[in-house]
């Protein structure tokens, strides 16, 4: 696909612009229809589509926006992946999750952060435990990953269900999740997180397109 050969500087400008707009739109709170509309608008936006179409067909441009920057957007907000530096705001990262899951004294083991679902290993002295986290909608994946991990290692894993401002979990859902987790032998915690301005952010006025 010709779009893969985007010059690095062009690619960087596009990522900054798309993430800037996604942040302004509160991307995570848009409906699917609104997201579809936004993909179309990006194609028509001279700052995005206008640049991309110089490097390929429209359908390739659309696929690129969807599969490259926006696929990584939620992960970038978590502080995971190669696109973290383009996210305007983000969460504090895996340390906060591990603290919430296991309490003080536990730390994230170096280079242990992975995805699908978001996870890491936490260490405390000689102990090591698997911790995974995500929104309530991903609970099924989190349970599966935890149980698979426990089946292989025998260690008791921990799940952290996260919420952010603008997001709630009903008590009924919570109660059900707690029963499932207890049944599966998995620790379950809830964490409401607040976003912070991304300390690694590279977009500033000079580099905006």
């Amino acid at each position, binding site marked *: 696909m010709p779009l893969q050969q985007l010059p690095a500087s062009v690619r960087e400008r596009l990522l900054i612009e798309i993430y800037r707009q996604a942040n302004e739109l*509160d991307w995570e*709170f*848009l*409906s699917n229809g*609104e997201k579809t*509309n936004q993909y179309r*608008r990006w194609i*028509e*936006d001279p700052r995005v589509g206008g640049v991309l179409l110089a490097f390929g067909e*429209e359908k390739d441009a659309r696929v690129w926006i969807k599969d490259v920057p926006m696929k990584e957007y939620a992960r970038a907000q978590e502080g995971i992946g190669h696109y973290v530096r383009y996210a305007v705001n983000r969460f504090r990262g895996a340390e906060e999750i591990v*603290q*919430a899951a296991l309490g003080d004294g536990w730390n994230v083991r170096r280079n242990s952060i992975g995805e699908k679902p978001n996870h890491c290993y936490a260490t405390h002295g000689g102990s090591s435990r698997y911790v995974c986290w995500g929104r309530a909608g991903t609970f099924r994946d989190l349970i599966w990953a935890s149980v698979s991990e426990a089946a292989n290692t025998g260690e008791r894993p921990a799940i952290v269900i996260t919420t952010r*401002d*603008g*997001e*709630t979990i*009903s*008590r*009924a859902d919570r*109660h059900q999740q707690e029963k499932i987790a207890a049944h599966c032998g998995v620790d379950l*915690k*809830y*964490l*409401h997180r*607040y*976003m912070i301005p991304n300390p690694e952010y590279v977009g500033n006025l000079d580099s905006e397109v």
Partner: protein
Amino acid sequence: MSEDQFINVTPHPRILGVLGDIEFSHWQCLAELTDNCFDEFQAAGEAVIRPAVSISLPAATSRRATAEITVQDNGRGMSLDAVTNAISAGWTSNGRHGSLGLFGMGFNISTARLGRRTTVRTSREGDPHWIEVTLDLVEIANSSKYQAPYRLVPKDHPGEHGTTVTISELKQEQHATLCRPQTQNVIREKLGDIYSYLLSEKGFLLTLNGKKIKPRLPCIWDEKRTVARQGVEIHAVQWIEKELSPKKACMACGYWSPLDAEACEECGQARLELRERKIWGWIGIQRYLHRTDYGLDFLRNGRKILQRDKRVFYWEDEDGLAEPELEYPIDSKTQMGRIVGEIHCDHVAPNYMKTAFEVETAEWRQVLREVRGSSPLRPKIAEKRRLPENRSPLALLYAGFRRQDPGLNYLIPGDGRNALHEKAAQWAVRMRSGDPEYQTDEAWYRAAYQHDHPAAADPQPESEEILPGFGANLLEPQNGEAADTPERDETDRAEVLPENLAAEETVDQRLQRYRAHATPVVDLEGTYFLEDLGRVDLIAWAVGGQRLATNDGRDAPVIVSMLRAPRLEVFIDTAHPLFREFGADIRDLALVEVAEFMRVRVNNVSLPLTEIVTQLKAQTSSPRLTPAAVAEESERLLEQVRAAMVTPVSANPAVPWLLLTKEERADTERRFAVESGGGTSWNDALTTGEFIRYIPATAVIRIIQDSPDTFLDGHVFKRGYMALSDPGARALVVERLISPLSDLALLDQHRPRLDTEELTRIRISCRLIARDLADNS
């Protein structure tokens, strides 16, 4: 005489449940709870980085036993003292100005209406516990004590903060309705409307079931747009900012006492608080007209209390003796309006349901006065009643925009013949759905401009040289070969393309060149859908001074191009001999090309082309050539002519009146009785010349013929008259005007059987008259 004795009137706690019988709709209940959060955000100022409220409603699949409603904010949260105070205030205080952050009566009504059990959970950043207070109406009633238990729940993370209200044990009816997607959509729209200011200007985030509620933004003309009336430029947006002297608000009854008062002048209580007071906001002109969707929003603490309120459009005399008179909209039969606005008046007390302000207060009357003044908006009526001229912001907008004539003079989109009201409203839907092309008023402005400069075949040039210096050396854009030998004489249709550029021009560049030399034909624009042929979103361009070529380089008077489905662009060469010399209709031919494109697209050329054109035509806004449609057009124009005659006639209204026959006078009076708004008496109409609006069409012609100097030369018609010295020339000028006017009059008074050619002639007469009408502001 015995001592005073007392009867115990402590209510039974069962009364609490009865609160829920007060008629609050779903969105109102949720708005009451949201108000508390937004009040807290406004009090917190910068302390909350991104103020957010999330509402969650039960899903369609939920069970009532476990279903609940939550309203959660990320505000600063409350201490035990504060939450005690806040909750008890709702029960024990009748505070009219509601200290911010306190739960008022609305909280109690809303929670009681939705369910039987309410939990308030709150905590501040750094506190070790959540405070969880439970208000269980059934338990309170059973215990016969007004007490709500609370408990402290350890926090997992001391950093968490905010307040969550959860309502459970939902009432059966409420649960059944609230979990419907349709109800949730209505709530979404309502909340997006009443909180539009806070969501768009303050950046508050409000979500419902995890999806952002979008503010309903005003769709108004930009403040830089102006119209001129009597030499004064009137901007389409008027700002209002009136600082009022601070006063002391009574926390008990809501009355405003002067600064030096020690106790409330109304109720005598000493609970006074000094408050700043201000009336501010804007009024402006909406980009579309609507029967109901216009009027002013009045806000308190950022929430709309009155939406699209129309009482500012009524004039009421100070004594309130006469019925209020409607002043806007009164100039059209359709009664559609477009004046809108957003007025903030935090100091005026609303009713407890927050659906109206207390209108009998001095504060509310002052707000109305600030916006609309005290005199009638109609200058002549004010003058007649010997009231001062109204110079309020609303009177200014009224002077500039009261009428709805298409064109730039009133900022109304049109297509050269008619106003495009429907289209203007459709664009507003696009604007509100976020379509970037409709965010600014450019599309509406282009259409208003186009009305004054309608797309039509270019007239024959008087000289062969349109663009001196270009012309002879033309190139075919596609193949780069010299095309300097057109078969027909086209030297006047020069192309402004340098040779080297033309050789390399891509399709995109070529189309861009056409667009650069084109004006949009807005009346053709829009979505066309045919069952067998699918949909196109059409954009039409009237191209001037450019020869059009198809993608394979063939010349054509009309070409179409689809760059991105379903958007189809049609380009029309208005100078092409097909239009200029043979008089073909540019719109019809454009639709022929569109029809051909559509049938080729689905590879079904067996569909008759002309049948497709018919179906497309039915979807355009172009008026039909039926006696009814033409009669309507001519009637509308005649009304415009009559209205424009009022001012010139007012100097000496007796002269035209004397020209009317006895029957015509009777007719006029009858029409006046039926059609006038009731604000003017018949005698007044006679003395001000207003009666002209109601005279029969034949009389219009006679009056104009009698004194052309009164109505020509820009008074009603643009045509010059007085400058001509030759009586024969003068007679000719009048004749050229009267002749089409008589066509209009014919239809106004009779419904003759007319064939297509006669109807066409009358339609052309309409266009000629419309073209000749002077700026009648």
